[in-house]
């Protein structure tokens, strides 16, 4: 064949877009072949690709053309105003997830945590009357009681093993229980196999008819891949019920995780999603910490998203008062050492005459309260300055940490496990003036905290720290200091307006410098979502993708320390990660991820499934990587075409279509696709 690969790549473009664009395209390829003649600026096609890689989770099929047609600058401007972008297709996808629209209290009521079940079992709380809800409660209650019974049994048969010696119960009782569980699981597995033969609707009906024990057993046997298989084809509501019978808490967390993946993959408001992710990670909260399992839905929806492109101070205050953060970094428990609470002075009830001495003053209770929580907790005060605002070198001292902690005493929660929100509790607040970063904070209760947050939000160190972090996410691992300085100036001049800071960055020469193109290695989330978008995959169930992210070292909402995930290459480039990515790419395109479907015809576009191997490769290079593939990658894959497992050619059937999914998998696992 005498045509070069690049020339072939141009053909479909000519057909699709006409001569004008194809000329541009050819110009780009000429520039690429000879690095010396590379223009100092990116051409429009490359600019579109770059913008989609940075402001979005990568391009979908046709996005580059769409953005080019609209004009890159105009597209960026639109992305900066997500309220102007219609997103009804995504909304329809999210509609079945009811918890996304619930407040925390509703979530707790509908999908009770173990504490609520325990309270009901002990007669401290009553069962709900709504029948569907009641069924979920009943299943949990049965399970709880069975567990209690088993505990008692174990205690009766072998009292010595039951902690009498101070050691945890072990050995015999445990072994028996394990055997019983194994047996239960075996039968449940068999039942699950039978049910799999039924169509999804009937499968669900059959389950609802089962006894609670059987439902439970089925539920436990459906963890991981098996569950994916079992729930395949079910409607989200059906999945929700099935999951709730087994583990109600999981409904809340799994809907949150799924919605995050669906938004990233399908929202038209891509910059909003990128910024939601950026700020969540900046103000990281770990989903595995107690009540936070129920608090993150509201945190992301009501705290992060509304301010993601707004004023930094508003975002900071919203996080500081969010139940999720107050709980995660323990500030809700921090008590001023000299506060009324610490001194055991009971609450004044406003209904009583203040002169009358309180009647229920029981010294024992007061003493207990004092022992339980009577002191400062520095955890939030430190991370607030180190991670949220000033940065670790932002010029604060240990003394500042303690003072900020004193200021924020009384910023607490009422019953966080039942979904209670932020309150300021004067009785826990440390009295007296404080000194923070050289500012005297006059004693004024809740207002002190607002004052300190205001000071922190407007520090030059904060402007620089936030600008650096943004530039690291959007430009390069080591962003040019001059760019960071200009962004920080915008930050200070425009009262911490995040949209304005982004504008400064998106319109900077540094952002568009050829060096910036594909300078960033994708994080696992960016990699997985960009692969889904590039291949136009249809996500029926996002949970298998979430499990992939876990395997790639980036479980969603799963970063335990407050630092959040790194956005730099060195955190994500290593053997385990590379193999994980290659395997993901192959599994995705081969249709081996349950719940995620890839349509290779769509990836192939006009080229069609019957083209020869070379044409198929080129078509896929165009659709997955906008045609910008190194010669090395292209030649390597082209050479492998001779392998029958990839080409699928057979002696008796030389015209058989090439295995386009294998080729797509190789391209998504290529070095080029690891970068954005």
């Amino acid at each position, binding site marked *: 064949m005498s045509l070069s690969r690049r020339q072939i790549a141009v053909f479909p473009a000519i057909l699709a877009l006409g001569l004008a664009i194809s000329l541009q395209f050819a110009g780009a390829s000429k520039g690429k072949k000879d690095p010396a003649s590379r223009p100092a600026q990116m051409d429009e096609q490359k600019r579109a690709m770059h913008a989609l890689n940075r402001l979005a989770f990568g391009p979908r099929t046709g996005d580059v053309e769409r953005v080019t047609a609209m004009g890159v600058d105009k597209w960026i401007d639109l992305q900066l105003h997500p309220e102007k972008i219609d997103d009804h297709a995504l909304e329809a996808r999210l509609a079945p997830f009811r918890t996304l629209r619930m407040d925390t209290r509703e979530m707790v009521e509908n999908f009770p945590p173990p504490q609520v079940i325990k309270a009901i079992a002990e007669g401290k709380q009553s069962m709900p009357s709504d029948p569907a809800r009641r069924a979920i409660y009943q299943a949990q209650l049965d399970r709880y009681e069975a567990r209690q019974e088993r505990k008692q049994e174990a205690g009766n048969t072998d009292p010595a093993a039951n902690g009498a010696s*101070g050691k945890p119960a072990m050995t015999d009782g445990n072994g028996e229980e394990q055997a019983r569980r194994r047996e239960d699981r075996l039968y449940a597995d068999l039942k699950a196999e039978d049910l799999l033969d039924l169509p999804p609707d009937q499968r669900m009906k059959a389950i609802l008819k089962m006894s609670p024990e059987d439902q439970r057993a089925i539920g436990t046997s459906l963890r991981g891949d098996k569950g994916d298989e079992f729930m395949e084809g079910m409607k989200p509501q059906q999945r929700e019920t099935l999951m709730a019978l087994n583990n109600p808490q999981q409904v809340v967390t799994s809907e949150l995780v799924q919605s995050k993946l669906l938004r990233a993959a399908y929202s038209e408001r891509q910059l909003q999603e990128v910024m939601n992710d950026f700020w969540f990670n900046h103000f990281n909260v770990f989903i595995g910490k107690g009540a936070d399992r129920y608090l993150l839905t509201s945190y992301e929806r009501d705290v992060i998203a509304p301010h993601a492109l707004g004023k930094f101070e508003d975002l900071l205050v919203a996080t500081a008062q969010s139940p999720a953060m107050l709980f995660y970094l*323990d500030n809700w428990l921090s*008590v001023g050492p000299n506060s009324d609470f610490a001194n055991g002075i009971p609450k004044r009830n406003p209904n009583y005459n203040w002169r009358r001495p309180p009647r229920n003053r029981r010294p024992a209770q007061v003493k207990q309260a004092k022992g339980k929580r009577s002191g400062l907790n520095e955890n939030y005060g*430190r991370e607030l300055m180190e991670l949220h605002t000033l940065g670790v070198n932002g010029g604060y001292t*240990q003394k500042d940490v303690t003072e900020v902690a004193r200021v924020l005493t009384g910023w607490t929660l009422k019953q966080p496990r039942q979904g209670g929100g932020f309150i300021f509790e004067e009785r826990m607040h440390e009295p007296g003036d404080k000194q923070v970063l050289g500012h005297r904070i006059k004693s004024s209760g809740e207002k002190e905290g607002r004052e300190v947050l205001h000071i922190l939000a407007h520090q030059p160190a904060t402007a620089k720290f936030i600008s650096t972090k943004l530039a690291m996410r959007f430009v390069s691992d080591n962003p040019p200091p001059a760019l960071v300085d200009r962004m920080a100036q915008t930050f200070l001049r425009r009262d911490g307006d995040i949209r304005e800071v982004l504008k400064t960055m998106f319109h900077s020469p540094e952002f568009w410098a050829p060096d910036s193109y594909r300078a960033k290695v994708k994080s696992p989330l960016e990699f997985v979502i960009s692969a889904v978008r590039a291949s136009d995959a249809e996500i029926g169930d996002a949970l298998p993708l979430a499990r992939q992210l876990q395997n790639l070292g980036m479980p969603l909402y799963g970063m335990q320390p407050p630092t959040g995930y790194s956005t730099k290459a060195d955190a994500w480039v*290593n053997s385990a990660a590379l*193999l994980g990515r290659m395997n993901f790419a192959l599994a995705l395109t081969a249709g081996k991820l349950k719940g995620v479907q890839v349509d290779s015809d769509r990836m192939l576009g006009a080229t069609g499934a019957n083209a020869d191997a070379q044409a198929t490769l080129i078509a896929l290079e165009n659709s997955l990587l906008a045609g910008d593939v190194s010669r090395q990658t292209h030649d390597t894959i082209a050479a492998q075409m001779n392998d029958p*497992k990839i080409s699928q050619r057979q002696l008796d059937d030389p015209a058989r279509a090439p295995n386009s999914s294998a080729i797509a*998998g190789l391209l998504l696992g290529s070095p080029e696709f690891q970068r954005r």
Partner: protein
Amino acid sequence: MSITRRVFLRNGAMAVVGTAALPHFLTRAAFGATALDAKNKRLVVIFQRGAADGLNIVVPHGEPAYYAMRPSINIPRNAVLDLDGFFGLHPAMSSLQPLWSQRHLAIVHAAGSPDPSRSHFDAQDFMESGTPGIKATEDGWLNRALHSLPQPADKSAFRAISLGPSLPRILAGQEPAVAVNNINDFGVGGRNANAAPAANTFEAMYAGSVDSVLHGTGQETFEAVKMLKSADPSKYKPAPGADYPRGRFGESLKQLAQLIKANLGVQVAFADIGGWDHHVSEGSTQGQIANVLREFSQSLGAFWTDLGDLAEDTIVVTMSEFGRTARENGNRGTDHGHANVMFVMGGPVMGGKVYGRWPGLDQSQLYEGRDLALTTDFRRVLGEAVHRHLGNQALNQVFPGFDNQPGKFLKYLG
């Protein structure tokens, strides 16, 4: 045989020369440890991420101030596993007690990084770079520890490994290092033979890539994949009695033992365990700290048992970014502090002893009036293992800017 291996080695090594039935390492050791082939020496580093509470791990039960400062979370004297009349192990650490009595486990108390940072992130970074206070260091000390060693002839892709989905800072640097998440699916397409062409294609693609970062990692990866395939570590089941607890850390050490037993040339290895940041309800003999300590020590105990004879050439060192406040806070927890405790275990270790100077817990003895003061720099402890065990004399390159003369070692390796 009722005497322990250690006692046997110390007292009767010369007597065994020529006894064919003895394990290989014993006969080798009998000829003198220094003559041993250096590449068989292994250093395993464990990081307790999140600032473990050293004062509740190796408890100074002979210190009245300890009990005064921790009214609700102290470990009562009658509950500690006494070590030497002054210190005692947390009761959840009984799995390590036999190692202590066999003198394979040494403890260094009041050790750590001298940097005053109480930031998890910075302090971990400093302990991994090996240059406290200097952020510009690009590589990790465990990588540098290999760098200035003479290269073995048969260079292994598994010379430096980390268990987990990412390569930690401590192993970053010039020497190839691999991260292994799970040895059972370490490869392209798992065990599916049909995946071979895809694997080959990826290998060629990364080998030819001009992307220097991905090129290098790709090369290391595929070398490791091939080695692992031929060694098939999955056939090495844990030794009898090596009961790894469930959880990521136990799984990491189990897989590490498999790699070592498969003779893949592991010289340095790294694993970490999180869950130590107990600002609230730390617990005492039971509770949060007891749970994580149980997992920690059972895993290490199982690893030791599992290695069998190979433990003789292995040293395990543990560290955590800083300790926690000497006093408990208002929530029955502890906040970020300063000095901490380190464990050193292994065949060559002169264990059964708490090394380092104990600074005391009286108000005047505390660092900044609140934390355990530091008397042993962590680089002193590590330097001895790197120098004496791995045989790397160039400590000024491994820990630049730190005066680490062998004369200043704690001499836990004799």
